[in-house]
């Protein structure tokens, strides 16, 4: 999930996101988006629950752009 934030709220948003267990990684960025968060869930219902009941309620997130990872490759 890419997030665009309002002004001067990054630390507050990061603290709120850290409380969510399913969010495994949070990175602050330079670019069009301010944060990148990696979310791990078992089901789409769980994903809906996190967004509807936790992430959407965080003040400071102006816009989010979510992608689902189909497959990963590492070396």
């Amino acid at each position: 999930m890419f997030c665009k934030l309002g002004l001067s709220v990054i630390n507050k948003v990061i603290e709120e996101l850290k409380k969510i267990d399913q969010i495994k990684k949070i990175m602050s960025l330079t670019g069009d988006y301010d944060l990148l968060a990696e979310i791990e869930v078992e089901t789409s219902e769980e994903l809906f629950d996190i967004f509807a009941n936790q992430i959407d309620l965080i003040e400071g997130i102006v816009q989010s752009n979510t992608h689902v990872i189909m497959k990963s490759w590492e070396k």
Partner: protein
Amino acid sequence: MQNKYILNIVIANLLWSFIPVLVSDLISEISIFMIIFIRFTISGIFLFILAIVFVLVNNHFTTNKAISLRLLFENIRHKNRRFNNIRNYTYYILIGFFGVILNLIFFFLTLKITSISFTMIGFLLSVIMIAIYEAGRNFEKFDIFKVLYITLMIFAILLILFVSFESARLHGEEVSFNGFIYLVLFSVSISFLYVGINKDSYSKLEITSINENKYYKIPRFLIKMSLSFLIGTLLMIPFLMILNFLPIFNDFRLEIGSFFYGFSNFFTYLGRWEIIYLIIFSTIIPYLLIYLANVNWKSLNLTYSQWSSILNLIDPMGSIILSVLIVSEYFPFELLVIFIFIILISIILRYAHEVKNIVNAFLSITLSKGAIGSLPIKILKNYGIMRIDSLIGAHDLLIQVRISSIKDFYYLVDKKLKSINDIKKIEIYFVNKFEKIS
């Protein structure tokens, strides 16, 4: 600790620091070439067998995806994209002979005719050489941390030189001129080893194998090291034969003669506890430790090779301390404390420099329709790319990049990725900070 495998690097360097103390008496009885030959031939054979056993255990006694021995050996012909596209077997020859064997030849020669402390200058000099090389090749800038740690290296070298000359004066001797020559040659060859050993690249098939079975990397590294060792020791024989006919220093010639005559006592030497220690605790175990660290490295900040280069200074520091404690080498206590302080500060400064220069970024990629296929594996081959995620959403791929300089980053994006026709758009996001990793 950021990554528990940092401890592997520390322990490996501590084990290596025992080598000078261990061989200081041995080299007066056995040819240094014979010590090197026995150490790396036996270690190479052991590591090779270990690689085969690992593969057989993985394939027959675990539920992991089978590792192909054929692929492991086909890799030997694969072109190394990070080392001028030479074939891997050429790369192993260069690393094995010019990196491992030559560096140890000059290391032991310096040790034999000078002192342990003086020989350790070679490590410090190589830090300076590599810094200059990186500035030239990568346009890596000389930030304040780099300037400071290089300055400290120069101080440390001058300090050791002072101690060496003082020791020679007290013993009524002179510091050998040949020692300086061997020292510089040792420095050059170990610099080559440090720079070259991590310039490895995987083929497409290998990246696929790694993603099917993460343990593929272990036998691959074992085979790389074992072949480097074995090729290096084999090449040593014709090298010494040719050298014997050239006008060379007398100490060199005596060592060559002693080496060839020593073959009749090969198994006697093999039974000596110092040789057994060298093989097990100074070669096999340290290399296994560092390669376990390499394949399991998960840190999102500095890479394994960066930490390895930061902590390499533990080896010479340890050797000098041990030389004072065990063989009572001359090194005034106050100067020893200053030296240790300099090295520890250098390690911290080096760490700060690497953290400052590393580039962590994510690339959001849009592909042309129907292009995804085997593209991720093709892209993953490039140096600096750690992970690729195939996405459903506004973008097709998310690429995680971790690379040691901005120049390498620009090369990756401008020369490598933008040249791929199927990539329509690249959006770059530089990582400021990893706020959470679990």
